[in-house]
């Protein structure tokens, strides 16, 4: 059937979204920064934001690699 690699790609994106969400909720969200007085909250949010952005970059990198792998034949055409 035409488009099977695209269905596969969408399915992999879905799995990665769920796994990424799991990482955010279980590992990154509980991180708590203390010992910096009034800037604790700001530092805490900034670090979490930085990690979240890094995760998005990693997600894009993985999707890009999977794209090349799945669509290698099509792209080389």
């Amino acid at each position, binding site marked *: 059937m*035409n488009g099977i690699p*695209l269905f596969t790609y969408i399915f992999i994106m*879905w799995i990665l979204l*769920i796994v990424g969400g799991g990482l955010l909720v279980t590992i990154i969200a509980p991180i708590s920064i203390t010992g910096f007085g009034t800037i604790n909250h700001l530092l805490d*949010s900034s670090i979490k934001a930085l990690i979240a952005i890094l995760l998005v970059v990693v997600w894009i990198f993985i999707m890009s690699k999977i794209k090349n792998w799945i669509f290698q034949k099509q792209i080389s055409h």
Partner: protein
Amino acid sequence: MLDKTIVGIIISAIAFVTVYALTPLLIKSLTKRNLVVKDYNRVGGAMLPRPGGPSILAGILASELTLYAFFPSVEILAIMITTSIAFLVGLADDRKVLGGWFKPLALAGCAIPIILLGAYVPHLGFPLFGSVNIPELYLVLIIFIIPITGNTINSIDVLNGVASGFMTIASFALTISLFIVHNYDIALASLPLGFVSLAFYKYHKFPSKIFPGDSGALTLGSMYGVITVVGHVEIIAAIALLPAVINSFLFLSSVKRVIEHRQIKANPVVHTEDFKLMASTEKEAPITLVRLILAHGPMTEKEIGFTIFRLALFSAALAIITSFMMGIKI
């Protein structure tokens, strides 16, 4: 609940009938004023009226105002204001060719009413794992969501009927998901989006009688974005949009910068002698969803549209499965 069901039927009918009745009048008016553009994929290159955004916005406002009269809420106000501003951004782009960065920045501004009205809860919910409270980060997320959904729908508006047909599938999936997560008020507010898209599809499907233009595509995409925020269904909404997200992702990763489609040097698809579409062999041509679909060989515009709809239905099914998973915590 019975009241809400009756109101749901009323606003769905208003949304559908408004667009269904106004679009032929808009087609006549635009044609009379020579506001037409060439349909490059049509044999002979027919001139079609554009934009269809005004009838889409009229359908949305008529139905949402009716809903607001029955059940006033800041969420419905946020939907109407943000969608209207996004329409104006699109209309400006329809009238005058603006730079690649204009739309994302202007659409980011469209998100401000959501923040000012406080029509959001700063929790990001994930399937199976629960939610995270991100008060500051969520504001940044709101600013990003509207440009992303608006431009994503705009970027898939490449063939007859694709943007409106795709939006019909994605928005009904979103409405079903909102019901599943028991967010009935926003599910009700999201109904007009599906019915407006469906009514517009009647005139936009192959062979198109009108193009939505940037005002139409941005109106639909932005309304989808606001519903995502006020309905707290960010992840589910992203999943329902995956085929369009892939299109944007493939385009951006091949051109490596934010540009307008009209600025690209080589077209990703070309015509065969019998006027089917086939993937371009030019190295400078960007990779798009349509180009990948055509990698197997030439297809008609209608066949490509239906392939995209099958992908949209698959994503819609995944979104609905995800909404069931929101209630499960491991």
